[in-house]
């Protein structure tokens, strides 16, 4: 909820992104990465597990 409030989206949207039910726009992705103090690779790709999927 705190993350959703900080970014300015609904908690439901964050939930949908986490459950892979919604593909966010690049703008939202960058905003998420910036708020969580990480980069897009770490946030959206597991790295080692990605190819297995």
């Amino acid at each position, binding site marked *: *909820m705190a993350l959703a409030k900080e970014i*300015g*989206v*609904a*908690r*439901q*949207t964050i939930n*949908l992104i986490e459950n892979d039910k*919604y593909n*966010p*726009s690049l*703008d*939202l992705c960058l905003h998420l990465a910036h708020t969580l103090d990480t980069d897009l690779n770490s946030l959206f790709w597991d790295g080692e597990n990605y190819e297995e999927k």
Partner: protein
Amino acid sequence: MKKSSLFIRYMKFWYGIEGPLDEYKRTQMERIGNNAFFLTWIPMNFFFLLSMALNSFFNSKVAYLTMMFGWAATLCVFSGYTNHEIKKYGLNTNEVEEKDLVQAKKRARIRGWISGLLFGFLGTIVLSWNNDSKLFSWASLIVFVLGTVFFGLFASIMFSSRIKVIKE
């Protein structure tokens, strides 16, 4: 946070969206609106053309009734589709934290009763206009009170049922 424009607030009101209009809700809202437009536009045109054709073969009353019933049925389909999609994608869910629950319920009740008042007022005006009766009469007052109470109660319950408590 940006102050939303009047148009955005109007759209949020009709879709029943609470909280921020983020990209997910906006995408869904636009998709539902697009589909609903075509669901309505094509049948309405069809019934309009049908009524024009019926007018040339029968009389204008048949044409008028065909068009009215056709448009009424189309509006029912439109309403059913938009309500179904809004509920399916959770657009009108009002997610609140437990500490904000009491305030949210109070706001929902106030909003419901304001809707009831508006409905009662508009209903009174329409009924007195159609029946050529006086606006300020006992019958109008009864219509106003009953309309306000029943619609206000229904709207309050409906807005309150949309509240969903988030447990962290």
